[in-house]
């Protein structure tokens, strides 16, 4: 009789990386569904399209590089799905497709693939699209009737007009990116991920808390600051991205603080109405430094 002699531990938790990724994808279906509800079948087509392009791009890159094809591990699907959620619902499909291909091929695979990319692929792709097609990327429509309009953040902070009701903002009945409008749907997905411990509290809490506090200190409505723009989606689904955010609890908290601070600076003092996208990308750059200094305390010593 011959036995398996692999090293210990000989038992492992049931959940593996694949399951974790697909759980995130599943949680994203809630804001995705809200997007389809508000923006119609065009939104659904956009979501399916970017997801398929992202997965296909990863498979193609891996085939081209003669590497094992792991495109169905869930991570590319998450990127594609996430990208659709932060695009204008009426964006032409070919632009969205280029964005999805860019996110995987340039932002993820060229940096070494899963676990090695510096920037959140979906956010970097959105920044790329915004620089390439600024008009299409800032054309927003009203839910249900698809009449072109401005986002609440633009209305309030740049045009000094009245904001939609808190309720409309909370359920998502307002103009904005496909999956960012319904805070309710985002929170359902986020609660699910928190419950199964796929994501943790420090980054989202610090992120949203900082934005609310600084907005209030600067004389803005903190609740409006939370409910508008892409803050809640960014805080729970992008500031918690494993690969591009710090690994320690301390580090994740600092990451959230930095994102919050930068978002406020961009929103109130910058040229764009919204700053969540760039704030997270900038903090992505600081992640290695945060990881280096925000270490856990070593048992039996005063410091890390």
């Amino acid at each position, binding site marked *: *009789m*011959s*036995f*398996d*002699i*692999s*090293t*210990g*531990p*000989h*038992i*492992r*938790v049931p*959940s*593996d*990386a694949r*399951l*974790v990724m697909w759980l995130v994808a599943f949680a994203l279906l809630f804001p995705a569904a809200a997007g389809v509800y508000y923006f119609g079948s065009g939104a659904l087509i956009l979501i399916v399209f970017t997801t398929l392009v992202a997965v296909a791009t990863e498979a193609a890159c891996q085939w081209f590089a003669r590497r094992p094809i792991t495109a169905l591990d869930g*991570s590319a699907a998450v990127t594609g799905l996430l990208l659709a959620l932060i695009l204008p619902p009426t964006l032409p499909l070919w632009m969205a497709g280029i964005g999805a291909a860019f996110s995987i091929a340039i932002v993820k695979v060229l940096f070494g*693939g*899963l*676990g*090695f990319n510096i920037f959140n692929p979906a956010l970097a792709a959105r920044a790329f699209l915004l620089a390439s097609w600024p008009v299409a990327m800032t054309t927003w429509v009203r839910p249900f009737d698809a009449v072109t309009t401005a986002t609440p953040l633009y209305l309030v902070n740049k045009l000094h007009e009245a904001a939609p009701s808190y309720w409309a903002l909370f359920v998502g009945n307002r103009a904005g990116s496909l999956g960012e409008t319904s805070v309710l749907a985002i929170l359902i997905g986020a609660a699910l991920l928190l419950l199964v411990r796929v994501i*943790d509290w420090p980054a989202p809490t610090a992120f949203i808390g900082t934005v609310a506090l600084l907005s209030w200190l600067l004389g803005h409505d903190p609740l409006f600051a939370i409910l508008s723009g892409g803050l809640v989606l960014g805080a729970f689904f992008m500031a918690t991205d*494993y*690969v591009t955010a710090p*690994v*320690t*609890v301390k580090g*994740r908290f600092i990451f959230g603080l930095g994102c919050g601070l930068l978002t406020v600076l961009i929103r109130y003092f910058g040229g764009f109405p919204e700053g969540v996208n760039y704030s997270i990308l900038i903090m992505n750059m600081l992640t290695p430094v945060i*990881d280096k200094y925000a*270490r*856990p*305390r*070593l*048992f*039996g*010593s005063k410091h*890390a």
Partner: protein
Amino acid sequence: MPNFRGGVHPPEQKDATEKQPLKTAALPARVVLPLQQNLGCPNDPLVKVGDEVKEGQKIADAQKFIAAPLHAPISGKVTKIEKLDNACGFDTASIVIEGSGAATAYAGQWSVEELTPEQIRQSVREAGIVGLGGAAFPTHVKLTPPAGKQIDAVIINGCECEPYLTADHRIMLERGADLLYGARAIAKAVGAGRIIMAIEENKADAIAKVQLATRDTQLETIKLRTKYPQGGEKMLIKTLLGREVPSGGLPSDVGVVVQNVGTAVAIAEAVKYGKPLIERVVTVTGSAVKQPQNLVVRIGTTFKEVIDQCGGLTEDAAKVIMGGPMTGIAVASLDVPVVKATSGILALNKRDAQHYEEGDCIRCGRCLKVCPTGLMPNFLGEYARLKNWDKMAEYHVADCIECGCCSYVCPSRIYLVQYFKVAKRELQTRKAVCK
């Protein structure tokens, strides 16, 4: 309830054997005794091929402080002294004894009060006792506090936090008197005034039993939460006394000595009856064992002989492990012998003995959350893949207690703790070479 940082909750899997009373295994007809079975220095044989030996006779020893002698577990004839497979992790020859004579009788004679600390240490050393929880560190060394270090508390470790194992659990239920005697002997040897029995709350019957046995004594019994690695020395001291063993230090640095319950009983037998360490309790369990049991086995008995007394293995047996599933070592064949550190023999069937394919780190941070030492296993793992031992030293790999929590939770199935063991050995060798 007091707690320590990190840790995991693997399925306990103790129900197959926790109600099985200790049973003395049949005397083996042949024993295989690796010359080194404990941390420290290897032994030299005191016998040669052809010699007749008696049960309990010292057959190997070393003239070093950190070493433990070896005794004949059965009477018989030395038939071989050569390299044979073993699972101790030391590259050493084994003494083989064949034939089994009548058992030696040991008679009680000493009470703890009559003995000096030095006499206790001497008995323990001469009995070849090592830590029976699995680490196998020579016990008399731990009973010799370094000069200038005051020991105020002795912790008797009955946590048995490894899944599947129930040897310590049964010892606490059935060997209460010896356990108490051993605990007192340890306290006397190190001059400690306080003795704490630490038991995880999943062993309610053992807690009740020990509490009853220690009712009119100065011993305290403390119930701890069930969490792996609660039985780790440093975690135990932190939970019970709030003291942290300094990085790179020993429990004696914070005035504590920790001994496993099985070791305490072995100490009692050595001090009271002069009985050397020639047998130990082994939990034989797992999905591939037909009749799981807690057996009292002579050191040197082969796994095959032990498992045969438990009904043998099932058809689909895929993996046999010496020790528990978290820290145990998988063995390639059943010809390896039970050694002093064999707390269990765990045989898993195909379904339980899954093989895990390593993936890339996704930086989820779970390993950091469960590491009881506060290390960053993810970075250590990356540096290990690059063989960057210096960087690993900088990230405190030397502080790793090798509990395996990081590997256990890793969703990418990275064999983190294995990398750290390799790195520690690598760094140690380098230090030795440089000296």
